[in-house]
């Protein structure tokens, strides 16, 4: 590098000490020429960056109207206002989770693709989201997270997995015919009002079954008393076109097959059965005699509709997911560049000495990459601190409050519905304070480079 050249003594008359370190100033530059070169930059920076910092600090000490001096009152309000506390809490989650996950994924991808022939193509795919706007990414993920499993791929996959492992409820929405002896017993279950006896079949009439659910059902059969068993029929007590008698199994009424029935004694389930194709069931009388019959809620649960990704509970993790989608590529590219600088021989030597790939990764690659990992983490943290667009776009209006972050609150406080520029300025200054340590590190690094 040319930096190491010994500095020439400048013929500038000004007694500036830094000049002696300025190893590469050309002779003969007059200060006014330098001023002309610098003027546009310094003017813009002064007017639109430095002055606003000063103004924000000043403004943050005044109330919403700007007339009343409130000292640090706005800062106090920041930490007491419930909406802003949510924002703070979410910002902490963001700053901790998003950079860590992005960096971890970036590291894994960088290491795994290193020796793959199509690694470049993979990197391109993962890195590409960085080129698009957070608005476009937000629209993309609004669709991914759509609640309707017919539209949002997130819930389509989730419901698919769920229904594979859990049987869907046979008759969502069904309920007993009034005055049939079945009463709601909490949580969506129904229980008989009287105890069952082995001698007399307990027939349970239900209504409000969706026609699609019984399209292929057989006609219900009246259960016969059987020795040692408690029997009965569960059926849809409804005759198409009318004419059916309530609580009686009429000719064409449909059987409700696959319903779970529990015999409950003193609050505990003593026996259970499932209705057959003709709607009949049989419970062992020795256990169930004198019990009440319960149709558990699982029979009637509404069809599983997936996760409410953008509801108040999950909205922040969901948006963080879309951020990771955008920024894992950034981490990957930087880490891959760092990886290229790791000496091959070192890794090979460790492998020859019998170290497994995991050990090589854990003991050699990661420590050597530590400086790069820190840079990536810090960069992402600064970036995440200011997150605004993604939250504003992905969170639907109903959960915007639950997804609140500082930059969004600042926007709302300053330009949105609840105009309070004092509070907005306080949030802005708070954001600036949070990045000051990084500013300090940057400055130290530059000064060190200068001393070379």
């Amino acid at each position, binding site marked *: 590098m040319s930096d190491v050249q010994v500095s020439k003594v400048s013929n500038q008359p000004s007694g500036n000490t830094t000049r002696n370190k300025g190893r590469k100033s050309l002779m003969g530059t007059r200060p006014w020429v*330098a001023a002309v070169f610098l003027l546009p930059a310094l003017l813009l920076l002064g007017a639109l960056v430095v002055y606003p910092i000063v103004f924000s600090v000043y403004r943050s000490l005044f109330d919403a109207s700007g007339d009343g001096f409130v000292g640090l009152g706005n800062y106090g309000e920041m930490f007491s206002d419930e909406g802003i506390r949510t924002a703070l809490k979410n910002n902490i989650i963001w700053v901790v989770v998003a950079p860590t996950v992005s960096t971890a994924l970036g590291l894994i991808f960088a290491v795994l693709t290193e020796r793959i022939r199509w690694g470049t193509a993979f990197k391109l795919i993962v890195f*590409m*989201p960085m080129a698009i706007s957070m608005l476009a990414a937000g629209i993309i993920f609004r669709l991914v997270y759509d609640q309707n499993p017919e539209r949002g791929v997130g819930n389509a996959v989730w419901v698919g997995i769920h229904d594979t492992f859990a049987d869907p409820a046979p008759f969502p929405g069904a309920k007993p015919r009034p005055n049939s002896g079945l009463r709601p017993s909490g949580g969506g279950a129904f229980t008989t009002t009287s105890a069952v006896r082995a001698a007399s079949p307990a027939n349970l009439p239900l209504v409000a079954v969706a026609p699609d659910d019984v399209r292929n059902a057989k006609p219900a059969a009246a259960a016969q008393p059987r020795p040692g068993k408690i029997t009965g029929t569960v059926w849809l007590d409804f005759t198409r076109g009318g004419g059916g008698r309530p609580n009686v199994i009429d000719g064409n009424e449909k059987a409700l097959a696959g319903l779970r029935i529990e015999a409950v004694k003193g609050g505990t389930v003593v026996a259970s059965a499932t209705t057959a194709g003709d709607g009949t069931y049989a419970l062992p009388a020795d256990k169930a005699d004198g019990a009440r019959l319960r149709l558990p809620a699982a029979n009637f649960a509404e069809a599983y509709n997936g996760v409410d990704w953008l509801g108040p509970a999950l909205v922040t993790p969901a948006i963080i997911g879309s951020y990771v989608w955008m920024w894992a590529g950034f981490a990957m*590219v*930087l880490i891959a560049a760092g990886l290229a600088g790791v000496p091959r021989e070192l890794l090979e030597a460790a492998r020859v000495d019998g170290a497994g790939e995991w050990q090589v990764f854990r003991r050699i690659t990661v420590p050597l990459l530590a400086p790069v990992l820190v840079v990536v983490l810090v960069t992402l943290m600064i970036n995440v601190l200011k997150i605004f667009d993604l939250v504003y776009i992905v969170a639907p209006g109903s959960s915007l409050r639950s997804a609140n972050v500082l930059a969004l609150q600042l926007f709302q406080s300053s330009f949105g519905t609840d105009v309070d520029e004092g509070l907005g300025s306080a949030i802005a200054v708070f*954001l600036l304070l949070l990045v000051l340590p990084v500013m300090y590190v940057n400055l130290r690094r530059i000064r060190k480079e200068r001393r070379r």
Partner: protein
Amino acid sequence: MTTVDNVVADRRPEAAGAVRARPSLAARIAARTGGGAMQIFLILIALFWLMPSVGLLLSSLRSPQQIAESGWWQVFSKPAQITWDNYSQLLSNDKVMGSLLTTAAITVPATVLVVVIGSLAGYAFAWMDFPGRDGWFMVVVGLLVVPVQVALIPVAKLFGAVGLFETTAGVILFHTAFGLPFAVFLLRNFFAEIPRELLEAARLDGAGELRLFTRVVMPLGGPAIASLGIFQFLWVWNDMLVALIFADSGSPPITVALQQEVRQFGNNIDVLAPGAFVSMVVPLIVFFAFQRQFVSGVMAGAVK
């Protein structure tokens, strides 16, 4: 791969010496078998990463009724559903097309200005001598991490006072100012690497500062200027926050125009999906055409 390595080692405990002597064999086996499983894993990850964008793309190619009724993945079984109608609607929509023009009218000047003003200052910091040079440069470096949020309220007031609020010029100036710390930092460091002899030779030939700057420094700074330009271009093109506050709400840039549509998300996917893609076309072209410059810009911009 770890497991494969272990298996190879376990099977031949007596041949540990052989493994040591021929590490390439173990590596080859690992690459063959473990590599296969890993490749499948990576293919799955790549598909997973592509899926969100593909979903939006396919949604943009379906009619509003189909979007409302079923998922975009239905296209795979019914390719006949694909239609360009949404796009032709969008392209004949004056508001959307106008907003794309606004975006370009903001992005191009904001990029050129940052490059020019940043180069001038970067050159001064690298090669000129003036009082307080290092101090001024430290100030610029310090400003690298200042969040734009700090400036929103004060600059809105300032622009309001001088008549720049809700104007394209105002947005351009804001983006230029906030692009400058990085521009000056990047270019100063790059220009400082130019061999002194080159500059001195030009100086001896009688070149003045301006000539030196335009004929020697700018051409030699090409790579850094390209990185900076691409970085700034994408940054400004993709910006929503600054435009939301400072742009003319009558003819907003594309991000703001689409953002207004997002509030009724659900029944307007046929507008949003193609709109988002149209807004992505230019950044993606820039990205694919100038990957290398973009990556080096991103790397230089780390810890910004």
